[in-house]
């Protein structure tokens, strides 16, 4: 007989969502002019109404950030700045349940992931950077460094709270003030974070949150009062930002797209590798810039491996993000679902073989079954373009060097995976792979002490660790 899991839904009781939100500017919520709805992608239920940031709003936020910088934040010692960050880390830990539920409601990701990954890591980023605030002279970048001033930060919808933490924590630790724009479809946890800033007693204007879409982001990028831009998002938008700031004195860091390869050698531990490949592509619905979206597998083991992978994929539970048993939640938006569908159809049309396990998808909301394509060649769109969904493309190789060459055959260079039981092969492959992060016999691991960022068209600079810190200090950049 087969045992079924009973539903185990997380309670929504800890979360209260206002019907309408403004921007958080200068320490208070200010009304927006135009608004747009934000929905739960799992049910299409309208959660709230979000303000569309205008030029007036961005001007006000930059002004508030500059005022806070001059009047207070720049005069504070590192030790006192750090205490505010420690407070924020603690409040995030205390309110973890609330943030996790809200994140899953707004983003569609499984509560298992928002609870165990997003929120604890966000708190860890504040805790890590808090300790840097009074030790900047030991960051190995000299003593003449100083803050940029007002930093403009634009973050994506895949890890709304975590990306906020990646951006705000190092900016504040190094003495900058910020204007942050969350993604259009996932603003709610950023707006809840404004409450955390208040509870932490953070001086008004140090953190400003302006919601909106790409037009609001462009206003931030082009604002003359902003000294540094930090952007995480698509390579396409990253290039537009790089062009927009060309010839200005603005500093820029960009964390952009990827098309990571998981290179599985024939001596890999098969069961562990299958688990790692599943984690690499189906974690967070594949909405991960460093997702292992290409499986590059040695031909001698590929048939056996694909069978095991399919068997494992049959156990993936797709459905209600608030159910603690759910592995794969909802696609974040209708627009993203369309992109995933379009690229998958291109995979069919170009001759790759599509496979998905039998799985019932909910009637409402945005859903896409876990999918693999076999018989993929290097010229296929599904091997070249970022799908940003639960779709894995499988390519094969014969010699180790061919595996590396196929893995590197992309304009991106954010991450890569290696699966082998042989240490010398892992070190050889890790040297050859052109990627900023290489996971060997594991995948999708993140930590605030650990620099993250890409080679080639995956962006400029690193986030996390001492390397990430330096991007927020002037006098370190090589200009």
């Amino acid at each position, binding site marked *: 007989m087969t045992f079924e899991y009973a539903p185990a839904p997380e309670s929504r009781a800890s979360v209260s969502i206002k019907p309408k939100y403004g921007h958080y500017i200068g320490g208070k919520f200010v009304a927006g002019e135009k608004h747009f709805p934000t929905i739960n992608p799992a049910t299409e239920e309208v959660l709230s109404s979000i303000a569309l940031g205008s030029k007036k709003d961005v001007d006000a936020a930059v002004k508030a950030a500059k005022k806070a910088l001059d009047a207070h934040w720049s005069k504070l010692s590192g030790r006192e700045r750090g205490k505010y960050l420690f407070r924020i880390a603690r409040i995030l830990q205390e309110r973890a349940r609330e943030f996790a539920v809200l994140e899953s409601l707004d983003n569609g990701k499984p509560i298992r992931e928002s609870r165990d990954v997003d929120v604890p890591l966000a708190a860890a980023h504040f805790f890590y950077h808090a300790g840097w605030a009074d030790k900047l002279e030991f960051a190995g970048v000299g003593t003449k460094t100083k803050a940029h001033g007002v930093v403009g930060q634009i973050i994506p919808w895949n890890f709304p709270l975590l990306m906020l933490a990646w951006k705000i924590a190092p900016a504040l630790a190094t003495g900058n003030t910020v204007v942050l724009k969350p993604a259009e479809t996932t603003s709610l946890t950023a707006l809840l974070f404004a409450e955390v800033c208040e509870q932490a007693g953070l001086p008004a204007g140090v953190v400003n949150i302006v919601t909106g879409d790409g037009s609001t982001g462009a206003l931030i990028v082009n604002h003359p009062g902003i000294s540094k831009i930090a952007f995480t998002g698509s390579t396409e938008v990253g290039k537009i930002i*790089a062009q927009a700031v*060309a010839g200005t004195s603005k500093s820029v860091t*960009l964390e952009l797209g990827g098309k990571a390869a998981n290179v599985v050698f024939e001596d890999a531990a098969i069961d562990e590798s299958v688990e790692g490949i599943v984690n690499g592509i189906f974690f967070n619905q594949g909405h991960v810039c460093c997702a292992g979206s290409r499986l590059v597998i040695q031909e001698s083991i590929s048939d056996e491996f694909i069978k095991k992978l399919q068997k494992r994929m049959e156990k993936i539970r797709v459905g209600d993000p608030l159910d603690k048993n759910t592995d794969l939640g909802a696609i974040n938006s209708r627009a993203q679902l369309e992109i995933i569908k379009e690229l998958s159809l291109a995979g069919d049309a170009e001759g790759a073989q599509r496979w998905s396990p039998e799985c019932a998808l909910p009637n409402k909301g945005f859903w896409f079954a876990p999918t693999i394509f076999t018989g993929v060649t290097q010229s296929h769109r599904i091997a070249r373009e970022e799908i940003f969904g639960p779709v894995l493309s499988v390519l094969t190789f014969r010699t180790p060097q061919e595996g590396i060459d196929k893995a590197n055959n992309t304009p991106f260079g954010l991450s890569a995976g290696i699966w082998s039981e042989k240490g010398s092969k892992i070190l050889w492959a890790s040297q050859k792979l052109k990627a*900023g992060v290489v996971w*060997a016999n594991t995948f999708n691991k993140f*930590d605030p*002490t650990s*620099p993250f960022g890409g080679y*080639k068209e995956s962006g400029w600079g690193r986030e996390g*660790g001492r390397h990430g810190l330096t991007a927020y200090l002037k006098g370190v950049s090589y200009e």
Partner: protein
Amino acid sequence: MSKRIDVKKTYKLFIGGAFPRTESGRTYEVKNSKGVFIANPCMASRKDLKDAVVAARSAQSGWSQATAYNRGQILYRIAEMLEGRREQFISEISELTGVAAKKASDEVEASIDLLVWYAGWTDKISALDGATNPVAGPYYNFTIPEALGVVGFIAPKKSALLGFIAGIAPIIASGNTVIALASESAPLPAMSLAEVIATSDVPAGVVNILTGKTAELAPWFASHMDIDGLDITGLDSKLVAEVKVAGAQNLKRIHAFKEVATPGRILAFMESKTVWHPIGV
């Protein structure tokens, strides 16, 4: 008895370890500070740049995989060879720019010493910028700096030897290969340096040197999709925005520098790679 007629030097390009003429057949005139004709260096074309990129790309993997010790030895070897030709460079610089022999001598000595300084960095930059990261979990995790790939360099107009070496030495120290565009007004020391490099155990293609019009060639450096980084220290400020916009096409790493001797010039054209592995039995 008639006065001896001296043998004038023909200046060519330096691509892939060879000294070809420009495929374009174009040259321009270089005069000394008194307006006397000295030479007709090549006016390199977009095709010459492409050839240089191909040479630099094919040399890149071997050079970046050479040991840091080996790269340090070779940079030091360039300094040795330059020391042996001190007098030639002193007279070339003073003839070209009209500076006193003492000043030219200072520049050549500073150039040699700078090469020695960067030679010593090759096996130390990883210790300076690398890290082992104490992640919260059973993983061993380290970050190491790695060469970026193929890097272009627009040399400064002045200090034609020192400024030139300040650009190429940090780029190649880490394992990058370089395509350098010599100073337009004073290109000759760079081309004489090519002769030094050619006899200094530097593998063919690691250093490639072009001469020509900066305003014509710099945008091609920026838009070339197989150049990963660009040092624009010698670029006119009015061209910077144009070059950065073109460079955004492949998110090229573009930097300009004020200091001659700083590890920042090495690190600007390196990437940080973070490697994770589980710990367990």
